[in-house]
């Protein structure tokens, strides 16, 4: 089901752009740099079988990706968080793989937005 969802909800992104105004690009860049760290540390927590860390990272990532309009990414986080919460972090291997892939797509799209937006003249 996740695969059927769009990587980014552009309506939400437009809304964000309106809210953030001249900080919109900064927000997108912050999301990318924060998310790079999270995706990597989630993999580390998985390898170590560290339920608590896996859960905390997935929870936080769930929130931020949800706010960015990355619903599929957020959904994957929810599922990983639930497994970690149940002490089944080791069963999350497939999901983490999916998440890394999904994030790659989201990041690509966001970078696209950044480059197209950066070319637009300031209001």
């Amino acid at each position, binding site marked *: 089901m996740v695969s059927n969802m769009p990587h980014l909800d552009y309506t*939400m992104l437009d809304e964000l752009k309106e809210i953030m105004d001249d900080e919109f690009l*900064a927000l997108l860049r912050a999301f990318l740099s*924060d998310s790079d760290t999270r995706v990597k540390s989630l993999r580390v927590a998985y390898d170590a079988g560290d339920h608590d860390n896996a859960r905390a990272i997935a929870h936080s990532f769930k*929130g*931020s990706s*949800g*706010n960015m*309009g990355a619903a599929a990414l957020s959904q994957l986080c929810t599922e990983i968080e639930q497994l970690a919460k149940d002490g089944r972090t080791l069963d999350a291997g497939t999901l983490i793989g999916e998440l890394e892939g999904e994030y790659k797509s989201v990041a690509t799209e966001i970078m696209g937005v950044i480059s197209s937006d950066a070319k637009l003249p300031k209001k």
Partner: protein
Amino acid sequence: MDGLEERPAKLNILIADDNPTDRMILSRIVQSEGLSVIEAANGLEAVEAFKKHRPDLVLLDALMPEMDGFDAAKHIKQLSADDLVPVIFLTSLTDADSLARCLNAGGDDFLTKPYNRIVLKAKIAAMTRLRNLNKTVLAQRDRISGYNKHLLREQEVAKCVFDNIAHPGCVDAPNITYILSPMAVFNGDLLLAARSPSGNLLVFLGDFTGHGLPAAIGAMPVAEIFYGMSLKGFAMSEILKEINRKLVQILPAGVFCCGCMAHFDYRKNVISVWNGGLPDAILYRSDSGEVEQLPSFNLPLGILKPDQFKVAPKELECAEGDQFYMCSDGILEEENIEGEMYGEQRFLDVFKNNTDPSLIFSEQKSALDAFRSTDDQGDDHSLVEIIFRQEDAHETAQTSVIATESISRDWRFSYELRSETLRSFNPLPLLTHIIREEPGLSAKSGELYTILAELYYNALDHGVLGLNSQMKASSDGFAEYYRLKEKRLLSLDGASVAITLDHIPKDNGGRLTIQVEDSGKGFNYKNIDVGLESNSGYSGRGIPLLHKLCERLQYHGKGNVVSVDYLWEYTNKLLTKAG
């Protein structure tokens, strides 16, 4: 509302979220509402930022590193104390347990991720209203408590003024025991006690309707009249009339003073009691254990106009050691846990069950304590016990007066009272007042009051009214004596009593001659050795006492004229001062 007026130009909002993008988005939404933002990346930072900036509203992420939102909320709620700082939890948690945890930690609301700008704005507005409402309530609370403090301060000042007026009293004499709240005057209860110039004791227990300042305002003139007039030797009935007159004049209709006044005459062994609206006063005969109830037969003070207000105190013979009780209705209306009132019967039972009269007062107190539902000392109940026993009679009246110069004047004063005046007027205060004008005599006014009273009442009762003092020997005769006196006074016609005070200066003092002449038929004094300290049929005339106090006592004419000499000297102390 005041709370809105105090609203600062820009509300401060603390946003704590470990996720930088979420924080950025929230900050931006909040700023776009014209509010200023303080950011924190975890719970610890949030608590520190709260201490430093005292924000108006806190948005807290539930799960954060270092310290989570739950603990941070608890700290923040503790730090804000009375001040309501709403905490909104930011959460993507959706299960009921987690949401309940937010509330238990002190959260006031939630905001779920992803954020919805409209919902967030509405929530901030709602929380701001809540905060303003709380501010208004706090401001009102502080104002009320300020008023209350102010009122208490004012009461203390008023109490101090009242104590200054009531100060000369002798309520702390060894024969008087009482329960009275220290601030009783603001509950309308009032206890006054004074010695008259003759050394007799006058006690008043009053209970004003109402509480607080109105009650205290009434108490002031009552105390002033009571002390002023008793010091000058006015009789109880005159003091009561004056108090009533004053209260009618100053109190609004509907405010009055229930009260009981008792006069203890130690020489005649008589208690006179006037009760207007207090529960029955009690006279306890210490030898027989007999209890005599003295109910209220009068309207309270401050109701009847002066011309309608009549005073007829009840006169009771009594003996040394008899005990007298007055209480306010607060005692009898004290309620227990079931809401049942203490009542008169329980009060009377204490007397009935008593075996040692000296314990009655403490037994009354403990019976009441055992009955009442709370540990609170009731504020508006007063109980007083007076033992019929003379205590240092002349001390109070004399120590307060010190002559400032050793002079002695030469003067004479004559005063004649005719029938109408004899019926209704007591000349003793006036005479005492005149005597006190002589500096050296002012300190002796107690003794002189006694002498004047003896001479005047001998002339009136035995000379003018022809009453036989031996009547008073028996209990029935005693009552009959006062009944006859009342009756004969009413039909008095063409009678008179003339009093002459003649003062001549002497070395270091003077001689006061008092002559009293009555219109009666006199008596055969020639056969009586007036110098004998005997009770030979004239005991009622207090002759032995007069002999003790005076240099010379002499009857003249047909026995209707009597004169005494009273010699006085300045004491050494005063001499030194004068020299």
